[in-house]
């Protein structure tokens, strides 16, 4: 009966394995992000500019009214921007902040709008993601990534990170995500069925990391 048991187990793992979640991107985002400081020198939030790939952009603007063919004004795109920021809430805006080992909470985005680049036919979503409570800290870590890797985030080649109205002496460091390795692919394959990521262990691998330090 042993051989039968082995076969049954192999079969079970094949069937369950075939249904396991192993993600793959359908949306590519080229990001530019700025850490925003308040007048008192506290970090108040993060300002994003996310440019979507041309295929997703074409999908997103499908059926939208336009005065001039091939072009969209920000006003025409504002309802879509509204939908974007509302839906992104479900995914925590793909943005995670930590200071002193503690997760920082964000509130709903402000100052959001979309721009359409008619030459490249791509959409860029601009929004400010405010921290729930502004924070004065020597060191703050930001991570931008999709834990399930449906959206691929990559830092722009030029001026990907900036500091906005930062106190003198503040500096930032950028860590790019590692290239997909065997271990990371395995991690993706191991994401539990409920899609929830057990810890921030995946972040280290996939995230675009921004660290700001102020004196």
């Amino acid at each position, binding site marked *: 009966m042993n051989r039968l048991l082995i076969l049954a187990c192999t079969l079970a793992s*094949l069937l369950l394995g075939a249904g396991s979640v192993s993600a793959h991107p359908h949306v590519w985002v080229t990001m530019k992000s700025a850490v925003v400081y308040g007048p008192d020198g506290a970090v108040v939030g993060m300002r994003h500019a996310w440019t979507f*790939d*041309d295929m997703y952009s074409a*999908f997103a603007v*499908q059926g939208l009214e336009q005065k001039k063919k091939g072009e969209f004004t920000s006003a025409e795109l504002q309802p879509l921007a509204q939908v974007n920021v509302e839906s992104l809430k479900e995914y925590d805006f793909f943005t995670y902040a930590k200071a002193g080992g503690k997760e920082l909470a964000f509130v709903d985005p402000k100052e959001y709008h979309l721009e359409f680049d008619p030459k490249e036919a791509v959409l860029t979503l601009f929004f400010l993601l405010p921290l729930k409570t502004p924070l004065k800290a020597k060191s703050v870590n930001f991570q931008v990534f999709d834990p399930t890797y449906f959206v*691929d985030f990559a830092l722009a080649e030029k001026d990907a990170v900036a500091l906005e109205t930062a106190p003198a002496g503040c500096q930032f460091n950028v860590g790019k995500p590692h290239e997909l390795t065997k271990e990371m692919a395995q991690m993706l394959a191991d994401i539990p*069925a409920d899609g929830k990521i057990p810890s921030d262990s995946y972040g280290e691998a996939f995230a675009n990391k921004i660290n700001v330090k102020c004196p």
Partner: protein
Amino acid sequence: MPVNRMTGRMALALTLLAAAAVLVAADAVYAQGSAFGPRGDTIPSSGILGWMFAKQAEFYRSMSAVIRSAKTDGSAVWTLLGISFLYGIFHAAGPGHGKAVISSYLVANEETWRRGVVLSFASALLQAFVAVAVVGIAAVLLNATAGQMCSAGRVIELVSYALIMLVGARLIWVKGRGFLREARSLSSRPLHAVGAAVTPPEHKHHDHKHDDHCHDHAHHDHVHDHGHPQHGHGHDHGHHHAHDHDHGSAWGHAHGPEPEELAGPGGWRRGFSAIVAVGLRPCSGAIIVLVFALAQGLFWAGVAATFMMGLGTAITVAAIATLAVGFRSAAKQIAGTRSGYGMLAMRGIEVGAAVVVLGFGTLLLLGYMVAERGACF
């Protein structure tokens, strides 16, 4: 059981063949990867999984450039078809293409690998067809927005998951009764015979007879003659299987229908429900490609690409389904050499696979498992 052994071997051979074909085809394109722009340096050197991730992303991303160039250069369409095909093969390794559901369905239903291949192709092509229909009706005819298409997609998705649950529940009902019957007939047998390593002659004879009978069914659906006047045997079968509440009495056997009988003519109708359950849900990648092609004024190129993706997807799904069927027939071969407990174990495997189908359907419907996140935000 010569036919079974052959099925197992064929299954193995086909699986290896499919795997080899995938690797060869992928390698060919990989070698000329530079033809569609810089290859980038993101291809991990180790790990099949990582490599597959990188490949499918690469194929998908190159599609937009190829569709664009197809506007002026007709020959780019051939490149598009090739990329789409390969993308389908790699992409189906990811979630949401019914590999698990189809494989479990095949195992639970004791289907042949041939039927597994047909089911895989039918569901993948239906999936492509649904994607084309959704974009064709919503975007081309109604000029719907992405948000509206997403809403439509969600409804289709829920229907699909509910259907998967139904298929699973039905299988559990049928297979669970088979399991119980087997268990009952085991416990009613004299104790010393049950544990015996050698099958009691009477039982063996019985089984053997069945097998012959069943193989006849499977291979000569329409020609064999059981003395039924006028009506084809197939028709009768179909009727019984569709309702399947009176198998026992219909066949006059103590322990209900043999699996091969279930896989007989009426089975195609049940197979249809599995095809629809799995194939109803369009892949979001295909929808994005279709809308992009539409925006480029090349909708037909998007349609062709979608069907090529479906073809590629079908190959991967069929390979995995064949593997599952192969394992199952190997298990059956071992089980066949045992006493009653072997058959009980086989019924147990079938019930288990049926539970997997219901489980996937339930998790998907309740949103605990994300098949593939829609491109809706």
